[in-house]
């Protein structure tokens, strides 16, 4: 379960940046959304990791 942490942490900013880039290209507002969504991507990665760790520790506690 915790195996997916590196992948999620790494992928989130990439996905965020990608969508930001697309939005910028559509709206011509470079680099506003790129930066905004990149930051949101980092935050999303950290949040997902936090939730995963919480779920894992919960399950560990329950199995004890």
């Amino acid at each position, binding site marked *: *379960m915790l*195996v997916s942490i590196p*992948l*999620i942490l790494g992928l989130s900013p990439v*996905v*965020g940046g990608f969508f930001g880039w697309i939005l910028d290209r559509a709206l011509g507002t470079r680099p506003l959304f790129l930066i905004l969504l990149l930051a*949101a991507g980092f935050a*999303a990665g950290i949040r997902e990791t936090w939730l995963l760790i*919480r*779920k894992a520790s919960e399950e560990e506690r329950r199995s004890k």
Partner: protein
Amino acid sequence: MKKTVWISLVLGGLAGSAGLAARGGFFAVSLLAGVAWGLANLWCLTRAARCVAEGRRGFPLAGWVVTKFFLLYGLIAWFLVGLKLSAAAWLAGFTITLAAAAASALPSLRGLFRQTSKQLLLLGLFLLPKAAEASQGAPGGPSHPPEIPNLITLITLGREGAWVDFLHTWENGIFALLIALAVGLAISLGARVLALVPGRGQAAVEGLVEWLDNLVCGALGKKEGRRYLPFLGTLFIFILSMNLAGLIPGLKSPTSRFEMTGALGLCVFLFVQWTGLRRLGLIGYGDHLLGQPRDLVGWILSPLMLFIHGIGEIVKPLSLALRLFGNIMGEDTLLGVFVALGAMAFAWSRLPVGIPLHLPFIALALIFSFVQALVFTSLSMIYIYMMLPHEEAH
């Protein structure tokens, strides 16, 4: 923490004195400043983490986070711009602290590192032939990683025409369909006549379903587990059989291509969103995506939370798809390379003999197929669990 401080102080002192001898006092001061900054950073972080762990969410936590972000990052700017310290030496000092922290956290991180390095190794094994190919300037045509030839490549060997192109384009889909049909047939035959005393086929199917039932219900609870068992169980059985198909001569693993795993990831994505919509309702689902705003700060932050949640929802299935694809492709490529090596071992003798060099990797592939199917299923399960209505983490 204590261990980290000692390790980084000793290493930083050594590196600082080395820097003093080689580059002068300026370099050494920058390096020590980097170490000190890293330690202060780590300290703030551990205090913040302790606040979270002890449930003190309010003022103390906010204080540590604000200190970390504003004071410490302000310090960088002041040191580097105001005092004009060497950025490279600063970075070296900071890296020392980081390495020390990682080293003292190593026992708990070891499993993680091992897994990650294994994946990197497999990826490297795949990239190596690619790199060699690229450096030789291979002539056109879509390049694929070396694989054991399957039925379709054997049939179409040396032939041309529209049907050959069709077969190659839909190769993965065709095999996936075949496997799905075979598995469906096997399971429905096993469960056709349900006897009180099960025969061999029925016992096998029952064992599998019971095991999946335990797995899903153990994580989601009995009531919710039963509701999502059909989807998750189907995912597991389908992925496992597709992974294992690569070991059967003439078949290939459709999961070794991103088209297939991407489609599976899309299924999980849609299923999870649909679950959210159905279980939370339209308003509840929107509320979940906006980060459950309950006060003014929550409403101000909600557009940002929408982005964060949206990205999170996309990344989770995408990471599933990428991991499955990477692992199975690496495994198949490994087998393909070693089969080719073993087949060429006695090529000089012009005798039809070879060495089954790939035998140990078959065991590896068996384990990997199972583990990856399990990981995909259990992570999908967790994504569904996170979508279900219950106390949300914030």
